[in-house]
């Protein structure tokens, strides 16, 4: 079983972002970076699948600047076999261009399964996985909350609004992973030491034209300052009055 997992280096989110002077990106000063949350679930799912089968190889691939190699090393320290860095100066917002770079790398790689996180936690498009599947002409399930592989076939579950659906598909396939599939393990000290010796190949990313760009980034307008109407049950009549007369939602 040969599995590729496409991952992304993203900033940690529990900060107050500032906009860079260019106005088209966030100010990276002082940000901490890590593997995108859902990509961590995908790496873990890939490791568990190969461990269960007792053989196989997990390869991580990323498109990013030099610093993205930290994220690849983290995956290697979790137990991934080798890593491929598709190098760019800055990650473009154009998800077709990223999918094209990944598909160029993955094409002909003999992968049984290509996993993604269901979306990156920063740009939140959820598009690179399915577009890559289209470019490779592979079956695809987006945002799987359960995934099982047996006898060359996959089964998955997807959460819908107030419902869910079960799917089956042949391999090779592309699956993007929702949380719930597998909680990512922490790298062990032994894993971290071993990761330093694992192969990490660097190549230029074949992005092609960029046809979707960020023209500005801005902080969302602050909500008008909230009002604490009062304490306890005594404040309920005033709340109901405001919901009727001011917010007009009752």
């Amino acid at each position, binding site marked *: 079983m040969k599995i590729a997992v496409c991952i992304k280096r993203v900033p940690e989110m*529990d900060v107050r972002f500032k906009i860079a002077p260019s106005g088209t990106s966030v100010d990276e000063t002082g940000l901490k970076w890590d593997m995108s*949350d859902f990509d961590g679930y995908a790496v873990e799912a890939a490791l568990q699948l190969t461990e269960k089968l007792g053989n196989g190889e997990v390869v991580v691939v990323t498109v990013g600047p030099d610093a993205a190699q930290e994220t690849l090393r983290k995956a290697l320290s979790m137990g991934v076999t080798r890593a491929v860095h598709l190098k760019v100066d800055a990650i473009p917002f154009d998800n*077709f*261009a990223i999918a094209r770079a990944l598909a160029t790398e993955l094409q002909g790689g003999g992968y049984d399964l290509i996993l993604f996180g269901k979306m990156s*936690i*920063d740009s*939140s498009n*959820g*598009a690179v*996985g*399915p*577009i*890559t*599947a289209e470019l490779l002409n592979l*079956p*695809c*399930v*987006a*945002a799987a*909350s359960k995934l099982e592989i047996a006898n060359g076939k996959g*089964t998955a579950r997807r*959460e*819908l*609004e*107030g*419902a*869910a*659906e*079960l*799917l*089956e*598909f042949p391999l090779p396939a592309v699956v993007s992973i929702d949380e719930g599939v597998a909680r990512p393990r922490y790298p062990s000290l032994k894993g971290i030491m071993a990761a330093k010796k694992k192969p990490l190949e660097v190549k230029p990313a074949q992005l092609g034209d960029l*046809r*979707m*760009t*960020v*023209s*500005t*980034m801005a*902080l*969302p307008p602050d*909500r008008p300052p*909230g*009002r*604490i*109407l*009062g*304490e*306890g*049950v005594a*404040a309920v*009549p005033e*709340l*109901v009055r*405001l*919901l*009727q007369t001011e*917010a007009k*939602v*009752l």
Partner: protein
Amino acid sequence: MANNILAFAESRGGDLRKVAYEAVTAARALADATGGEVHAVVAGPSGITAKAGALGTYGADAVTVVEHPAFADYNPEALAAFVAERAKGGGYRVVVLIASAQGKDLAPRVAGKLGVPLASDLTTIRLDGDKVVGTHPVNTGKVIATVTLTANPAVVSLRPGAVTAAEKPRTARIETAAPAGDPAASRVKVTQTIAGNTAKLDLGDAPVIVSGGRGLKAAENFKLVEELAAAFGNAAVGATRAVTDDGWRPHSDQIGQTGRQVSPNLYVAVGISGAIQHLAGMRTSKTIVAINKDPEAPIFKVADYGIVGDVLEVVPALTAAVKAAKGH
């Protein structure tokens, strides 16, 4: 340059979903700017054609319908092939989908087939000359990106609820079409659609959401949230991740960064402290009410109206007051 706009009208179980009307409404606004027509596409099992006329009410000039038993459940490959084929054939300026659970799966497939990027989960969209410009919350909603698409066609998905479906009646031409290829031959097959509680309003459709957190103290106290939702009458029940992780509520009820993102007219946060992961899922709600015992809770920073107090006392009083205001 092409002036027409293509809208994908989502259906489930042989009925159009609310987001179908949102897609057509958004497409109508774009077509009014270009002077073009809105063409909607619908796929479903036998009988779906009878539902297609309703799209004219929201401004569709033409509706192309494909009926096939293999469209009874979501059929991602056949549906993407069909929408992409229509998009190629018509020379459209913009292809509009809604980023529902189905749309999040379908839209990037359609973009991939058309060889273009997807501007996904937009909260606004407009034309700027030959470009399409939209806004998209990034970094868990803490930053708003304005995204410019120069691809042709521009394929976009809009956040559910970002556009309010509005009637602009016209008599739509209804055309039937054959699927692109054999829908029964799709490699990815939905083997079962597990219905939730269909009597329950979905979080994406409900104008009011009453949501509960750990401040309710125990799973059985969630009935207070349900009773308040029932008093509003048009409300769905949501929950924080802490609550769904503890099994008080199903995972599908979770609102937040890793759960559902919602924008109802009214969001009532009951016993929710307002962790950033939760705020990421509901901060775009039009009016936010918070009830929490801790006056320093971050939820009060985003709430339009707050009550500091014990939810176990305040919520039943609010339920009674809402019932009285609604006249029942």
